[in-house]
């Protein structure tokens, strides 16, 4: 943990060396998700509700998902460039060091420019919480926190899974984007909107619905079942198979590059 903190500091210093560029990229990141926000806004201006959800509810749903995504992205997106790390042989150097490879990969790239997205999701989240009519209770607050935590772990697991596949393919797999960036974009609305089949897939296969849809229903009083509280925790178990694939890949790894 202390090592990660050190990595963190070094990375901050390196970004701050290019102040203007950092600022502009951050603004850019901010705009990216603002675009999606505008999309939701204009759609719900035209259609007051979608499957009975109104704008404020969608906004809460969207911001919760975006918040967990940006948290996961900020700390775990180091895996994004994992294909390059393997490709140029840098991973061999990582392996000979006496520290966990995951930690080193993560530390090698921490995305501060994604702060823009972070700021935006926090802003949107506060606005949504302030606007929406929810009678907050202790269980609801806990549910909310677990939703964010569960979502962060879920996205982080997907980033690890993405990297783990690189062991086998040696290049990034574009279609994995549908599960990370795609999920971020389509998570704008409660998953029910995409129909029963997608809801099933996201319940049993890749548990987005467990951190988004079911606890969300409880939050907005559509369901009174407070045991949905535990679903995000269940979703965190998704980390285990991903970590398993990573371990498997690590054993399968044959060095490349020169």
């Amino acid at each position, binding site marked *: 943990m202390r090592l990660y903190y050190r990595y963190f500091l070094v990375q901050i210093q390196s970004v701050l060396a*290019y102040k*203007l*560029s950092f*600022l*502009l*990229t951050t*603004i*850019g*990141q901010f*705009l*990216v998700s*603002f*675009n*999606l926000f*505008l*999309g939701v806004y*204009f*759609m719900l*201006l*035209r*259609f*007051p*509700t*979608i*499957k*009975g959800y109104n704008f404020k509810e969608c906004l809460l749903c969207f911001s919760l998902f975006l918040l967990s995504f940006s948290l996961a992205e900020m700390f775990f997106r180091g895996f994004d460039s994992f294909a390059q790390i393997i490709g140029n042989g840098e991973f061999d150097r990582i392996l000979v060091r006496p520290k966990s490879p995951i930690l080193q990969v993560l530390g090698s790239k921490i995305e501060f420019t994604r702060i823009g997205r972070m700021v935006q999701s926090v802003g949107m989240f506060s606005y949504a919480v302030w606007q929406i009519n929810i009678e907050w209770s202790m269980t609801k607050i806990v549910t909310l926190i677990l939703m964010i935590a569960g979502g962060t772990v879920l996205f982080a697991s997907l980033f690890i899974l993405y990297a783990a596949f690189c062991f086998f393919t040696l*290049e990034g*797999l*574009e*279609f994995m*984007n*549908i599960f990370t960036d*795609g999920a971020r974009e*389509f998570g704008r*609305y409660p998953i029910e*909107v*995409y*129909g029963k089949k*997608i809801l099933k897939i996201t319940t049993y296969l890749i548990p987005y619905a467990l951190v988004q849809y079911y606890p969300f229903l409880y939050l907005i009083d559509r369901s009174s079942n407070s045991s949905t509280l535990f679903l995000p925790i269940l979703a965190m178990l998704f980390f285990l198979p991903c970590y398993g694939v990573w371990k498997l890949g690590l054993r399968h790894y044959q060095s490349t590059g020169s």
Partner: protein
Amino acid sequence: MKKYLALFKTKFLAGLQYRGAAFAGIITQICWGFLEILLFKSFYTSKPENFPMSFQAMSSYIWLQQAFISLYMLWFWENDIFSDIKSGNVAYTLARPVSVYSMWFMQNLASRTAKASLRAIPILFIGFLLPQPYGLSGPYSLVSFLLFICSMILAVLVLVALMMPLYFIAFYTLEPMGPRMVFQTLGDFLSGAIIPLPFLPNGFRQFVESLPFASVQNVPFRIYSGDLAGEKCIEAVVLQVFWLVFLLIIGKVLERCVQNKIIVQGG
């Protein structure tokens, strides 16, 4: 002209090499298309009368968008141009007896068309196989189809012309990331990549439709399905031509500025 065509050909053939990536891209785009359609279907069922175009036209729009995404994506840049400018290697390019503008224009055009030609057909095919109104329908009429083809070509030319100034700005800023991100995100929204432009509220919609971004994917896709037909369709195509000429002039002026007053980096 001949040398530019030769350049186009080499870059195009180079672009055709990435078949594995194209396959992955096709799968991603098909999944994306399905989810988009499911989403819009939910909106449609909640209040059909508020839907600004027929659902059929909407589906066609989505499938065309997915099929030609690599032709019209705003976030794809020729990174070697940027790195050449940053490292100073651009001096070699500037020393050649060709126009940098035309050369880079061709390079952009070639890699886009190469990417799209690998990906478009399978996605269009899947789109056609799907049951109506969720799939890609045939073109609205023969006239629409011919106009669609013209408009597709104009659209990609407008897009490249629209992106060219950003490469020249990099001569001044060196680090192109910031302006690029702002440009591509605003552009994404204004070109109708996030939600089709007819979904915007009146007034704002007319404003956005007059901007050059709207001359990119918005026009051909809507002509295809007949959402833009008759007089409106002609108007939109004329606007495309106008923006193309305008942007080409701007680009040429910028090229002149850069060539007259240039500081090449590196040594």
